[in-house]
Structures are given as structure tokens and as C-alpha cells.
């Protein structure tokens, strides 16, 4: 067990030491994807607006409730980040095959490269979310500090989640399609744009038994309700710890074997 821990730590510390590599590559990735376009990465902002506007103006019954716009705007921001991390993680080591087989970079470099890419994408979407909040006339309160804490917890959980799903993709290649479909369903099974008033038993089950609910709640509830979602924080901390335990176990056990498997 000590060897597993030591292996995992070596990789993680090595990945931190190579932060210039993943910061540079992640930034290049984002700009490369939009290099020939007129708007460049601002397309990420447009994408978010288009998606948010669809849910706010088409799927929300009139009259428009500003609080509901905030609910959807923040929910969509958090969901998109989580969704991108999970769906892209499953093919991560496959995509990085040439690097894995041609360099001695720690696997954490690829994990952090993907995590940072998605964080940059979310930063553009955040600009859109701020506009929605301003248009909805939101007032900043002390409870927003809980939201900041929620964002931090999601960021802490992200590398672990990416690591676990990246290994899943290595050992079970079909998982990329299974996960993509599951996440598509999860988008609608998660209270991204709907709430739970308690009337519909199916919605209630989806609401309470869906781990994504709690990750959305720790960022969204302080802004929408001004409350501190302590229970949701408890669930998210437990999931984060479990994910890190899984990530450390996988990294420590299989990090050297990935080059022979992918």
C-alpha cells in the first residue's frame, strides 16, 4: 500500500513540477481550436449564451422569473464544466498516446492539461453567467462566499474525477460511448434547469439520489437562496474524498502500465 501511495505521489508531485507544460499546452489547445475563427475563444461565451437562453426563454413558462434565470445560468455553468471533464476524461489517455509512449511526463500532466482546458472554457462561460446575473438584478451577499467555497471544492475534485474516468477508458474502451450517453441522460436527470417542488416522485428520486445535484447546489444555492448548503457540502466532500482515494489507487497501481496498454 505504501508503494502505491508513493507511486501516486511521485506522479502527482511530478505533474505539479511540470506545470509550465500543462498550462502552456492547455492554453494552446483552447486557442488552436478557435484559431481560424473571427470570434476566437469568444465562441465559448456565445455557446453558453445560446444554451442558457434556450433554457431560460423557451423551456421556462412565462412570465420570466429572474430568480429562475439565475438558477439556470449558474446551474448550466457548473454542469457544463462537470460534463466536459467526465466525457473528455474517458478518452484522455488514448488521445495522449503518443506523449505517453514517447515522453516520461507524469500522467498527472495530461490530467491537469484537460482540467485546465475545461477551466478556461468555463471562464469564458462565466463571463456570460455574470451578464445573466446582472440582467436578473442579483445582489451580492455574504452567502456568495459559500459559492466560492463550492467552486474550490469542485476544482479540488476535478483532477481526481478525470483520473478515475481516464483509467476507466483505458481498461474499458467502450466506456467512452456509454459515459457519453449516460451524461446526455444525466443532463436531463440533473436539476440543471428544473427544481424539485416535491410533487413528482420521479423528480424527487432523481433530485436526491443524483450526486450531480449536490455539486450544483454548493455553488448555486448560496446565490439563489442566500443559504449555506451544508448537507450538500457534506455529500460533495465525501464524493471528492472517494474520488481521490480511487485516483491515488489507480495512479499508484497502473501508472507505469498505461504505456503498455493504450
Amino acid at each position, binding site marked *: 500500500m505504501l508503494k502505491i501511495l508513493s507511486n501516486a505521489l511521485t506522479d502527482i508531485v511530478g505533474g505539479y513540477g511540470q506545470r*509550465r507544460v500543462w498550462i*502552456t499546452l492547455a492554453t494552446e489547445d483552447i486557442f488552436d481550436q478557435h484559431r481560424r475563427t473571427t470570434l476566437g475563444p469568444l465562441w465559448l461565451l456565445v455557446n453558453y449564451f445560446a444554451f442558457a437562453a434556450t433554457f431560460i426563454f423557451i423551456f421556462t413558462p412565462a412570465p420570466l422569473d429572474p430568480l429562475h434565470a439565475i438558477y439556470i445560468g449558474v446551474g448550466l455553468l457548473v454542469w457544463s464544466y462537470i460534463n466536459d471533464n467526465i466525457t473528455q476524461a474517458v478518452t484522455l489517455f488514448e488521445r495522449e498516446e503518443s506523449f505517453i509512449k*514517447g515522453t*516520461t*511526463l507524469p500522467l498527472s500532466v495530461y490530467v491537469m492539461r484537460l482540467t485546465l482546458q475545461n477551466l478556461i472554457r468555463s471562464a469564458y462561460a462565466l463571463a456570460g453567467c455574470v451578464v445573466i446575473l446582472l440582467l436578473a438584478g442579483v445582489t451580492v451577499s455574504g452567502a456568495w462566499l459559500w459559492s466560492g467555497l463550492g467552486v474550490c471544492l469542485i476544482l479540488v475534485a476535478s483532477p481526481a474525477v478525470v483520473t478515475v474516468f481516464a483509467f476507466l477508458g*483505458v*481498461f474499458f474502451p467502450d466506456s467512452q460511448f456509454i459515459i457519453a450517453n449516460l451524461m446526455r441522460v444525466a443532463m436531463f436527470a440533473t436539476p440543471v434547469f428544473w427544481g424539485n417542488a416535491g410533487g413528482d416522485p420521479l423528480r424527487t428520486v432523481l433530485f436526491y439520489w443524483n450526486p450531480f445535484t449536490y455539486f450544483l447546489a454548493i455553488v448555486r444555492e448560496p446565490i439563489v437562496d442566500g443559504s449555506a448548503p451544508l448537507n450538500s457540502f457534506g455529500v460533495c466532500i465525501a464524493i471528492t474524498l472517494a474520488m481521490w482515494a480511487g485516483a491515488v489507487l489507480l495512479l499508484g497501481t497502473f501508472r*507505469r*502500465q498505461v*504505456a503498455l496498454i493504450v
Partner: protein
Amino acid sequence: MVSIRAHDLHLDYQVREKLTLRPRDKRLPQTGGTISGTGSHRFVTALDGVSFELEAGDRLGLVGANGAGKTTLLKVLYGIYEPTAGSLEIRGRVDALFNINLGFRPEATGRRNILLRGLINGWTEAEIAARTEEIIEFSELGEFIDMPFKSYSQGMGARLAFAIATTLEPEILLMDEWIGAGDASFQEKASQRMNLLADKAGIIVLASHSEELLQKTCNKRLELEKGRVKHFGKMGPDDPA
């Protein structure tokens, strides 16, 4: 003192059957070597008791048929694969050139790619900046250095890759059968630089099928066959072409 000491190196691994819904992949593993067992209990012996020693100034030519284990041995020396048995003691900073295009971004300019490739090789930005002009000069790319990498020919890419890998003067340089990508004059220039590196008390390990290149560049020869050492010794004029 720069040196490589490999004693009884083994690389064995089980062919991990991926969980999949489609028919099983029956392709042979890319490490070469020999396969034993059947079904889900197939084992690959990619390296089998490989021993050799290299001292400062040695230039080793790795030869053998496809699948003999040349690339696998290079990757073990570089640290990508971990030997499952035996001992490997390497003294000196190692750099490798396995894949010319690795880390090069097609949309970025040659100059930007120098930075990216340097970072991937573990250099600091100051080290990269200090050597950028030397790399450009050696690669003979001229004004193309500020053009996107995708506009380069294969030979231009090879020149840039080689210039980056050798400019920081690695103490141990591992190369895998790619140098033929450049034209004759570049190959000559590359060969001179490799000799210079070795003369500065470095070690070069070059896997190649080109006997002409090996005769010109190397002073030792290690022949592999199915992951085992068939012959290791000084490169002589009578070695097979």
C-alpha cells in the same frame, strides 16, 4: 561520469484483455519480443536478460529485425517502460528522439514549437530562450521558423526536432530510426553533431536498420533477436551490412 549499466534486464507483462463489447483484439503487442500462454493469460517477454555497459563517448548502434525489441529497449532506457527484473543504472541527463512530430503543433510556428518542445523536454524557459537562435541556425529553417509547422516538409520537421534535441547537449541521447527523414547534407550534419556530442563524453544509442548510418556513427553494436541479446561488441568493418 556518464554511463549506462544494464544487467539482466527483463520486461515481461501480461497482455491485458480490455473489457470490450467487440471481438477481441488479436494484434501482437507493439513491444515485440515473444508471446507465451493463450487466451486471457498471454504474456509478452519483450526483453529477456539484456545486459550491456556503455561508458562516456560510446555510440551504440541497436540493430535487429522488426519486433526484436530495439524500441522497447530505448524506452526502458528513457524510463517510459519500467523493467520487471534486472538492474539499470544510468548516470547522466537523458534525452530522446523517438517521434519527430511529438509535441509539435501544426498551427504553431517553428519558433513557438521550439518553446513547446523544450518545455516537454524539461527545459526552463530561460534555457529555451538562450538556445532558440542556435536551434534556428542549425535547423537551417531561415524565415520558415515563423511559419506554421504544418507548412514544413518532413525533412524540415526532422531538422527542427534534431536541432532541439541536441542543442541542450544531452549527456545521453536515444534515437529511434528517424534520422533518414532528412536529406543527405542534413544527415551528414546530424552525424557530425552526434560525434561531437559523443566526443564531449556523452553516450548515444541509435536504433536503425541503416548499416551505413550505424557504421558512420557508432563504435559499438548490440544486436537483438526476440528481446534477447544476440551480439554485443565493438563495431567492426566486417559487421553485416
